[in-house]
């Protein structure tokens, strides 16, 4: 799959948005996707390019904002990068098209406090049901404490 072909298809699926791509080792293409376009883009990936395999969804706290990475794989790696605000982060669920995303979304949801709209059962996956504190992967510590 050519990166250009991917970007073309994405622009068609979700007009009015721009998509940027860059490469990542090893043999991985990262494409930035706005949250609103996620479902359309994934649909395009599945129908046009037969990309079915979602390896996982990584969630991380980049300090000023949250970042979700959807790692797909089809002969090469395709990662969709979705940026979300720290306040009330919301993104549509993929469980309709890819039931396997269920566990991954639940984990990102509990670890970063992200809401996946339309998820059939967003309970905690790994954390106990009575977990009251902050989502564990959010950066809470002040930056001056000597760590990165």
């Amino acid at each position, binding site marked *: 799959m050519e990166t250009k072909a991917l970007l073309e298809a994405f622009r068609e699926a979700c007009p009015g948005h721009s998509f940027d791509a860059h490469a990542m*080792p090893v043999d991985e293409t990262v494409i930035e996707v706005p949250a609103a376009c996620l479902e359309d883009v994934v649909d395009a990936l599945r129908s046009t390019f037969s990309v079915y395999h979602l390896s996982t969804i990584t969630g991380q706290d980049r300090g000023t904002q949250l970042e979700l990475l959807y*790692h797909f794989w089809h002969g090469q*790696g395709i990662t969709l990068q979705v940026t979300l605000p720290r306040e009330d982060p919301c993104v549509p669920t993929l469980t309709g098209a890819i039931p396997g995303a269920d566990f991954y979304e639940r984990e990102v949801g509990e670890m970063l406090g992200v809401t996946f709209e339309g998820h059939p059962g967003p309970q905690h996956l790994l954390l106990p049901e009575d977990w009251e504190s902050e989502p564990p992967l959010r950066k809470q510590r002040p930056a001056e404490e000597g760590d990165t």
Partner: protein
Amino acid sequence: MTRITIPVGPQHPLLKEPLSVRLTAEGERVVEAAMRIGYVHRGIERLTEERSYVQNLHLLERVCGICSHVHTTTYCQGVEALLELDVPPRGLMLRTLLCELERIHSHLLWLGVLAENIGYTTIFMYSWRDREIVLDVMENLSGGRIAHAVNVIGGVRIDLEPEQVDAIRRRLDQLQEQVDDLRDVVEHESTLRARTKGVGGASLEQVRRHCAVGPLARAAGLDRDVRRDAPYAAYDRLSFEVVTEAGGDVWAATRVRVLEVFESLSLCHQILDNLPSGEVSTRAPRRVPEGEIVSRAEAPRGEVVYYIRSDGSDKPARIKIRTPTLPALSLVREQLRDINIADVPPVISGIDLCIACADR
């Protein structure tokens, strides 16, 4: 008919690690299955952010007991790519050797667990006895039966003398004979077939939808293996077959795993016959330049994925681990609907659980 709830786990003779499956049964038929994991969640991903890259090597080895080496392999090759290090060929071959030995030991362990769970204690005893051969070889190589600590960032820390190579070859030949007998049993023994054939089938479509990987997916016909499709370590220099079956039932999964043991044995022999000379590792700097990487490997249970992001210091900014048992658990929820209670042990054993991997 009245419905009863049968708790399978967190403590249950069927499970080696805590997992909770609540089955709702009418008579001998399961109607619903509710699953809960997280009993061994140790917060490893969060812990990696507080440790240096070298310290994380020790931590990540302990994500799982059975597939410890492949975790550090995936981690090391990710960090090595970020550092743009070239691991010497001898190091890569030794790393691959241990990967394949681990695959053999994991599949034999699984065969024993499956046999025990369907009441076939004899095969459990035989396969674990054969597994001792592999564990002895790994101990000879690395000093540890389960936690090998062989990988370092930049290569491996062990090396092989020619006498060791000969000794390992002899032991692997002995193992081959014994696993041949096991394969005979798996293919022909009637009660084993009766308990596993047609039990817990998964279609290719179901496997795709749940993004399942590994022998479980290959048993349903999905032709995917990271060693062939995205070669890492020394796999681009080695040749092997990817074993697939059709039907996705427990018997197909058993066949796939037993035949994979033979492929792994062949790979081990190829490695031992073609060990290049030279160093086994290169020096790695402590600080990793900024960057991110997705590193993949084929663990005994399937594709293991590491996303590593570094920010230029000596501690990683984020490590995300996805182990193959997680999508398998997603798939098994579907396989557990509308089956006999007596079929629950083979189905749950058939996915080769590694809850420690799934929970991290």
